C-alpha cells in the first residue's frame, strides 16, 4: 500500500468542504419550509410621532394598499401593550391572550356569518360535551328569571335529585361565588366540573328562613335526547331534542321499543331542536329514507359531495311518518326534515324552519385549547333546494297562536295525529293495518 500523497489530502479536504456546504444548504433549505412570515420585531410604532413608514406595503390587484390581518393584529397588539395608558397609567390590564381573542372574534365577526365563531377553551369544552351527550355535572336544568338563576328541572337519578334540589330553588352562589346577574352559560360553567368533585350551591327556597349551602357530588350526566311514548291508535311519538353522538343510537332503541309495541304510525317531533352533528343527521335520516342522497354539501369553489343513506340504518318497519317542525328546528333538524320531505318518506307538519343551510367544521387550536367553528360548506336537500335563510316549508302548515301556547293547545301535534288517523288524506294508518290484516 502506498503512502497517502498531497493529492489525496486535497481530495479529503475537498470532500469535507463540500459536505459542509451541502450541510449548510440542507439546513437553510429545510428552514424555508416553516419559517413564519416575517413578524416585525424592530421598528414598532411609538406614538405619537412615529410615522411607521414601511417598505413597499403589499397592494391588491387594484393597486390599493392591503393591510395584512396578521401584521395589523400584531401591530395593534404591540402598540397597545407598549403605549396604552389605561385609566391611571396602569397600561393594558388584559393579557395578550384576551387581546388576541378579541382580535380573532372581531375578525370573524367581519365575515358577517353568525355561525363562524371562535370558541374559547371553556366554550369549546362545553361544545364537545354537548356533542358527546355527556358531561360532569349535577343533573339540573337552569333558567334565568330576571336576574336570578333558578332550577327549572331536576333529572332523575342524578346528584341533583339525590341532594334534594327542587325545581324553583334559586341558586345564589356557586362555591361561594355569587352568580347574581351572571349569564346562564357562565353559571352552568361554574356548576359543571369533573365527575366525583364537589360543588357547593347556596340555595334559597320558599320555606327556608335563610340561604342554605348544599354540597353536591358531580357525576356523569347524560341528558336524554329522546322522549318516546305510544299515543292512542298505536301512533308512536318520538321527540328528538338534539343531534349529539348518542342521538341515532337512542332513536334506534326507541324505534325498536315502539315496534315491539305494535307501532302503526310515527310522529317525529323536531320542534325546538337546534341541531348538532351532521353525521348524526345523516344517520337519523337513514332510519326513514330508503335510499339515495340525504344531503348534498358544497365547498368553496363549488365542489359537491353527496351523503347517501347509510347502509344498515334503514332497519325498522316503515310506517306512515309525520315530522313536526317549527321556527326553532335548525341545522341537523332541517337536514332530516328536508330529506324526509324531498324523498316523500313522510309529511312535514308545522311552520317554516330556521333556515340554516350551512355546515360548520370545528377546528381545534392545540396551542391553547380553543377552537374555531368555521362555516365550510353550504348544503342542499336531496332535490337540490338551498334552504339558507328560507328554511324548509312544511307540507302542511299549522301555526300556533300565542293563545295556543298559553293554553298548551298543541294543534300541530293534533294535526299530525289527525293525518295519521286518516282524517286528512285518506287513511295512512288504517291502510297499513288493512294491509297487515
Amino acid at each position: 500500500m502506498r503512502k497517502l500523497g498531497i493529492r489525496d489530502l486535497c481530495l479529503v479536504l475537498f470532500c469535507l468542504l463540500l459536505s459542509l456546504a451541502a450541510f449548510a444548504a440542507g439546513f437553510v433549505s429545510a428552514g424555508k419550509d416553516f419559517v413564519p412570515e416575517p413578524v416585525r420585531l424592530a421598528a414598532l410604532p411609538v406614538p405619537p410621532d412615529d410615522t411607521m413608514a414601511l417598505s413597499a406595503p403589499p397592494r391588491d390587484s387594484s393597486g390599493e394598499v392591503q393591510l395584512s390581518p396578521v401584521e395589523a393584529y400584531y401591530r395593534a397588539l404591540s402598540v397597545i401593550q407598549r403605549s396604552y395608558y389605561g385609566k391611571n397609567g396602569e397600561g393594558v390590564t388584559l393579557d395578550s391572550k384576551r387581546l388576541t381573542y378579541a382580535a380573532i372574534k372581531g375578525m370573524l365577526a367581519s365575515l358577517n356569518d353568525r355561525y363562524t365563531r371562535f370558541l374559547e377553551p371553556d366554550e369549546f369544552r362545553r361544545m364537545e360535551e354537548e356533542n358527546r351527550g355527556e358531561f360532569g355535572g349535577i343533573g339540573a336544568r337552569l333558567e334565568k328569571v330576571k336576574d336570578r338563576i333558578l332550577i327549572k328541572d331536576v333529572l332523575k337519578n342524578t346528584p341533583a335529585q339525590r341532594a334534594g334540589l327542587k325545581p324553583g330553588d334559586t341558586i345564589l352562589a356557586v362555591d361561594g361565588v355569587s352568580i347574581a346577574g351572571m349569564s346562564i352559560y357562565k353559571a352552568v360553567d361554574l356548576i359543571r366540573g369533573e365527575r366525583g368533585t364537589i360543588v357547593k350551591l347556596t340555595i334559597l327556597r320558599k320555606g327556608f328562613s335563610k340561604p342554605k349551602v348544599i354540597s353536591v357530588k358531580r357525576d356523569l350526566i347524560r341528558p336524554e335526547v329522546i322522549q318516546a311514548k305510544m299515543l292512542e291508535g298505536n301512533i308512536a311519538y318520538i321527540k328528538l331534542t338534539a343531534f349529539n353522538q348518542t342521538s341515532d343510537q337512542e332513536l334506534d332503541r326507541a324505534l325498536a321499543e315502539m315496534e315491539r309495541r305494535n307501532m302503526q304510525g310515527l310522529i317525529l317531533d323536531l320542534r325546538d331542536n337546534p341541531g348538532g352533528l351532521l353525521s348524526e343527521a345523516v344517520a337519523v335520516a337513514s332510519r326513514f329514507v330508503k335510499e339515495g342522497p340525504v344531503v348534498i354539501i358544497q365547498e368553496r369553489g363549488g365542489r359537491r359531495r353527496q351523503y347517501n343513506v347509510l347502509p344498515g340504518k334503514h332497519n325498522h318497519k316503515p310506517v306512515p311518518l309525520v315530522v313536526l317542525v317549527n321556527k326553532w328546528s335548525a341545522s341537523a333538524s332541517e337536514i332530516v326534515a328536508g330529506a324526509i320531505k324531498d324523498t316523500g318518506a313522510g309529511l312535514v307538519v308545522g311552520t317554516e324552519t330556521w333556515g340554516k343551510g350551512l355546515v360548520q367544521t370545528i377546528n381545534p387550536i392545540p396551542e391553547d385549547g380553543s377552537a374555531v367553528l368555521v362555516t365550510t360548506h353550504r348544503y342542499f336537500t336531496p332535490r337540490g333546494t338551498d334552504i339558507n335563510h328560507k328554511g324548509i316549508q312544511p307540507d302542511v302548515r299549522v301555526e300556533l297562536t300565542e293563545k295556543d301556547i298559553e293554553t298548551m293547545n298543541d294543534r300541530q301535534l293534533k294535526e299530525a295525529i289527525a293525518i295519521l288517523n286518516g282524517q286528512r288524506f285518506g287513511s295512512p294508518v288504517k291502510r297499513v293495518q288493512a294491509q297487515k290484516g
Partner: protein
Amino acid sequence: MFVRMKRAFVPVALIVVVLGSFAVGRLLRGLWPSEGLLLARFSENGGDGLAHVGVFKTVLDVLDKEYYDKISDKRKLAYGAIENMVASLNDPYSEFLTPERRKALDDAEHGIFHGLGAVVVRRPARYKNLDYMEVTIAAVVAGGAAHKAGLRSGDVIVRVNDSYVFDLPANVDLDSVDEEAVISLLSLPRQSMQKVPQIVSYKEVMDVLSRDGSQVRLIVKRAGESKPIETRVTLAEVKVPAVEWRVLRGSVGYLKISGFTAGCGEEVGKALSELRSRGCGAVVVDLRDNFGGSVDEMRAVAAKLMAGAVGYVHRKGEPRKLLSVAPEEPVFNGRIAVLVNQGTMGTAELLASALKERKLGVLVGARTFGDGLEQALVPLEDGSAIKLTVGKFLTASGRDFGGRGIEPSYLVSGDDRQLAKALELVSRPSA
C-alpha cells in the same frame, strides 16, 4: 485499496457525502425550535407579547383554506380584528379609525366638521342593575348641523330615526344583560311578533351621523327637561374659524376659541394684538364647547396669555412631564375671564385650569366635561389608524380632572348670563 479503486469510487463517494450532508442539515434544522417555540421564548423575555400570535395565525389559515365563501376583502378581516381588540380595552376614547373616519379626524384638526357638527362620545352610565354606555353630544360646533338644530352639549342621544340607541361596555356580555331593564330604559314598545325594534350601537350611530347631506331625526334627553326632545337635523360639513373676536362694551375684548386646530396659536396672537390696538385692557376668553385638540396648539395659545406651567402629562411608566410655555412677548397682561361649560373638553380644560390655578383668569360658567386623557394617532399604512389613549393631563397643581372636570369660580347657567357675568367681572377694577 483506496488507491486502486480511486477512479471509480471518488465520484460516487462525493455524491454520497454531499447528499448525506444535505440530509443531515435538513434533519437538524427540523429539530430546531419551531415557530411556536421561538414565539414562546420571546414571550418569556418580553412580557407576554407574542405568546398568541400563533393562535391568530391558525384561525386565519383555517379561514383561508376552509371558509365556504370567497373572502374578497382581506382588509375587512384586519379591520375587524383591530377594531375589536381596541374596543376590548373598554376605553371610550380609544378606537379604530377606518380611512374615512381618520380623514374626518384629520379634517377636524383643521376645523372642518362633517355630519352632525358635534363631538359625540360614549360615557359609562348606570340604570338599575344595568351598566351601559350613553351616547352623548359632548361639544357642539358653532354653525354646524347640531348647533342649527338647537342641540346642546350634554344632550344624550336616545333615538336616531326609527332606531333605539344602546351601547354596552366591551366587558359586558350581552347574555348577562337584564332584558327587562333595557326595555324599560329605552322605553321599547312591548315585543310584538311583527316588528322587533331596531337597536343601534355607538358605532352605527356614528356612521349615520357622519353622512353629509342626509336628514336624520334625533331624539335626545336633556338634563332638566322632563320630556325627550325631538329634532330634525340636516347633516352638513361646516368649517369653524379657529378664533373669533370682537370688542364688547367698555373696551373689553371677546375671544372665542372653538378648538385648538392647526394655526390656532398664531390666530390668537393676531386677535389679541388687534384687541390691544383697539384699547382693550381686559378680555373674555370663550372656551365653551371647545372640543380640545392639539396640545401644541393649546400651548401656543397659552403662550400669548401666560408664562410657565400649564400642566403636566403623564404617560405609562414615565415620570410626569411638565408642560410649560415660554412667554411670547407681548403676553396679554390685562384681566382675563374664561367662559367654560360642560362642552369644554380635554386640552381646553387644561388651559382653563392653568389660568384658574395660576390666578391669571377667573372662570365663569358650568363645570367642564372632564376628559383628562391624551390620545395619539397610530397611523397604519393603508390610511386607517388607531386612536389610542396614551397619557393623562394633570393641572399645574397636579390635579386629575378626568371625570370631574374643572369647576368655575362663578357657576352661572344660560349662555347670555354667562357672558354678562364674565363681562362684569373683568370690567370691575381689580381689587
